[in-house]
Structure formats: structure tokens, C-alpha cells
């Protein structure tokens, strides 16, 4: 309980420090909206030429778009600190974070919320709203949506932590390896059934964004029973968090400070 209060307080301070840069915040939100708009422009182009993709209608794919954006937005707002790991390592700044008497992974994750996430989250929520107005879901979907978003954010962050931990081995002033994971999240905007088998396995089981985005979408289409739409995201999130913790612990043990 004490630890939880500490993390909440830390998060609140980090949030306030990020909110100091108001122009950055405004530009960041506009930027996030423009990125989502760019993705939707491609969606528009695609659905000009085909009534459905992989037997998914435009409204059903739009739901995947919206849910992906909400997942990204929540992850960026709450657990974004992993993106700073390569820079902390190069500058020797991780020492400071490791000496605190708390678990280092959550500490690193919540230490740098990204406020432009608001743009991603809001645009995602609006997109889901539009999708659901075009194809109304069962009432249960409204209650399950927060579960999907939270689980998706944990899965995405876990994948970033696992891949980002490579920074402990390959020191460098870049985060491109994590960018590959980020770009893979974009694949969740379309039904996984249109991808080759290896990519389906990758996005449903290995880096299981699909468990929190595609599986709920498939339930809404009547393809899966409701319990799958509830259990699959939670199970994937739990497995992801467990794996991320383990990988982080193993890799952090190899850490050698580069500072003086």
C-alpha cells in the first residue's frame, strides 16, 4: 500500500513536470492527432477500393483502429519511461533510479509520462465511438472496453520492455529497436487474418497485441464467445508483464554504469 502511494505520488510529480512545457503539450497533441489522421487517410484510401478486408467491414476495422490508438495513448500516458532507457544508460543516469528502495521497472516506466498521449487516446475514443455508431455492439462491450484498453497498454509496454532491455547489451543513443515494436502495433489496426501465418503468430502469441485488439474485435463480429474476449486479453497481459519483469531483472543485473 505504501509502495502504491509512492508510485502514485511519483507519477503525479512526473506529470506536473511534463505539464510545465505547455507549448510542447499543445504541439504534441496536434502531432498525435495528425499521426492518427495519416493512418485514417490510408484506411480511407483502402476502403475506397474494397468493401471489406479479410471479410471485415470498414466499421469493424475502424474499431481496431480506435482501440489501437486508445491502447497506445494509455501506455504513453502512464508507462512511457522505457523509451528513455537507452539515453539513461548512455548518460549513466540509471544509477539514480536504481538506488531508490522500490522496484526499478515500474519506477522507470512511470517516471516519464508523455502528454501527447492525450491526442492518441481521444482520437482513438472518437474512432471507437464512430465505429460503434456504425455497427452497434452488445452492451457488455461498453464494460469490456476499459479492460481491453488497460490490458492492451500492459501488453504493448511489456513488449517494449522486453525489446528495450536489449539496450543493456547493445549500448547506443537510439531507440530504434523499440520503434520496431511500436510499428508492429500498427499491424493491429487491421485484422490479423490478412497477414501471413508467421505475422499472425507474432502478433497474437509472441507480442500479443492481437489478444487485446483483434480478439475483442472478433468477438464483436460474433466469431468468439464472450469469455474469450475477457480472458484472452487478461491472460496475455499477465503473461506479458511476468515476462517483462523477468527479462528486466536479468538484463538489469548485467548493468554497468557508464557514468563517473
Amino acid at each position, binding site marked *: 500500500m505504501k509502495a502504491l502511494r509512492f508510485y502514485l505520488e511519483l507519477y503525479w510529480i512526473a506529470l506536473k513536470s511534463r505539464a510545465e512545457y505547455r507549448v510542447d503539450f499543445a504541439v504534441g497533441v496536434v*502531432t498525435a492527432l495528425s499521426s492518427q489522421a495519416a493512418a485514417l487517410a490510408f484506411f480511407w*484510401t*483502402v476502403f475506397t*477500393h474494397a*468493401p471489406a*478486408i479479410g471479410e471485415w467491414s470498414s466499421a469493424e476495422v475502424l474499431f481496431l483502429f480506435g482501440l489501437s490508438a486508445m491502447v497506445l495513448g494509455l501506455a504513453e500516458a502512464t508507462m512511457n519511461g522505457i523509451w528513455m532507457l537507452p539515453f539513461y544508460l548512455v548518460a549513466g543516469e540509471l544509477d539514480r533510479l536504481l538506488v531508490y528502495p522500490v522496484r526499478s521497472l515500474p519506477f522507470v516506466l512511470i517516471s516519464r509520462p508523455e502528454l501527447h498521449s492525450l491526442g492518441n487516446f481521444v482520437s482513438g475514443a472518437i474512432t471507437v465511438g464512430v465505429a460503434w455508431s456504425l455497427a452497434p455492439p452488445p452492451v457488455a462491450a461498453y464494460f469490456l472496453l476499459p479492460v481491453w484498453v488497460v490490458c492492451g497498454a500492459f501488453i504493448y509496454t511489456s513488449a517494449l520492455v522486453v525489446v528495450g532491455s536489449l539496450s543493456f547489451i547493445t549500448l547506443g543513443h537510439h531507440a530504434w529497436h523499440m520503434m520496431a515494436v511500436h510499428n*508492429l502495433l500498427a499491424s493491429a489496426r487491421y485484422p490479423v487474418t490478412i497477414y501471413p501465418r508467421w505475422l499472425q503468430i507474432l502478433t497474437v502469441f509472441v507480442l500479443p497485441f492481437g489478444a487485446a485488439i483483434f480478439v475483442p474485435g472478433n468477438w464483436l463480429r460474433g466469431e468468439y464467445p464472450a469469455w474469450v474476449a475477457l480472458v484472452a486479453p487478461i491472460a496475455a497481459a499477465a503473461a506479458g508483464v511476468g515476462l517483462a519483469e523477468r527479462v528486466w531483472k536479468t538484463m538489469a543485473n548485467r548493468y554497468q554504469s557508464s557514468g563517473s
Partner: protein
Amino acid sequence: MTATALRVATFSHLAASFALLAEKTARTRLAYRSATLLALLANGVAYSVIVLVWVAVYRENPNPGPLALPAMLAYLVTAFVASEILSLNVDWRVLQRVRMGLIATDVIRPLGFGTFQMAQAVGDVLVNLVFATPIVVVGLWFVGGGLLPASLAAALCGLASGALAFFVAFGITFLLVQAVFVLHSGYGIVTAKMALHQVFSGLAAPLVMMPEALRDIAVWLPFRHIIETPVTIWLGLAPSAEVPSLLAAQAAWGASLVGLGSVIFSSVLKKHQVQGG
């Protein structure tokens, strides 16, 4: 101060400095090979999604537009190659140097700030050409001879168009990056530029496949001349009669953007406060 320092730089001196700077930039980028390779991988992942979505579209509707699937795949792979070759680090470099205050030394260089940035951009392209080679090999395996130019004339005009596309890409970046001098933060500017590039350059789809409203906007913007114009000329998708006007449009956009960037730079610099002490 010595007489050598006061000597007026001749064109050959400037050209030699330009070439040397481009080479140094390329060497620096090559020193960070793993970062460049991972960037390529990350971009490849994102672009694979676009290609796979288009394959799914053709599966649903075998005739979605004027391009058949093999021609579309050739277009997409060539567009990705062009995009990787013309991917310039000018904005990220300037952004970082403005934030750290190091830009102060860049603006007083005898080569001139714009020329200095352009030389570094040429260095970026040299390295990108090296790293684009494996993409071309994979692309050839993926779509076969469809990647090759339609004719010798198409190849020559395509290469000329690629060179002009560099000026357009540099001009847009050089113009937009000046906002960083005023805002001291350029993440939003850079990402917004990337979003516009993604929609209007023809990277994700040639203009003929875009919805009419998007196409109407794209034809008035310079972004199409970075990817769509060189790629369609290279592949012979642009009608021969239109090639001279396309090249002229690229040259006009390139000259205008670089010229405008140079003209407003001195006023932007007057508003800039160097960071750090």
C-alpha cells in the same frame, strides 16, 4: 588572424568543403551501423503492413484501380526504396543541436547554414544508398523484374527525378526545421511533417489510387514529388509526354523551397536564443 583565414573562398574551395562534409557525415552515420539497421528494420515492419493490406485489398477486389497487383507491388517496393534513400536526418540533427545550444557553432560556419545542412543531407543519402541495397535485393526476390526501369529513357529520367526529389525533400525539411529555432522544440513539427509525407507523398499509395478529395490536395503539395514522381517515372507508369512537366515541377518546388528557406532563415535566426551557457 592570418592571411589564409581572410582569403575569399572560391567555388572550388566551397565545393571541396561540401564534399568533405558529406563524406564526414556518411562516415559518422556508418559508425552507428546498428542504429541505422534497426531504423531500417523498424521502417520495414511499418511498411510491410501497408503492402500486406494492399495485397488483401486486391484479394477482395482484383481490379481496384488502374494498377494491376504486380504493378502495384512494384510501385510499393520502389516507393519504399526511394523513401529510405531520401530519408534525411536534417531535422533530428538540428533539433538536437538547438536543444543543446551547439547550433551556435553551425550558424557561423563559412559554408553557410543552409549549405552546411545540405552537405550533411548528401552524406545521409550516401549511407542510405548502401543500406538500400539489401532492400532492393529482397524487393527483386519479392516482385521480380517489375522493379527495373521500363526503358533506358525511364531509367535516366527516373534518376534525374530522384536527384530533384532530394532537393524537394531537403527544401521541405529545411523550411520546417526553422520552426525549431523559434519553438526550441521540434518533435511536433518533425512528426507532423512525417504524417503529411505519409499521406501525400505517395508512399502508401500512388495518387491514382487515392480518394478524389485526397488526390486533389496531394497534387497541390510538394510531397508527391519526393516519392510518387520519381517512382512512376522510373517504372514507366507516368506517360512519356508528362515526364518533362513533372521534372520541371520538381525543379520548381525544389528551388522554391530551398530558396524560401534561405530567405527567411536570417529573420528566424534573429529571434533565436541559443540554449545553454
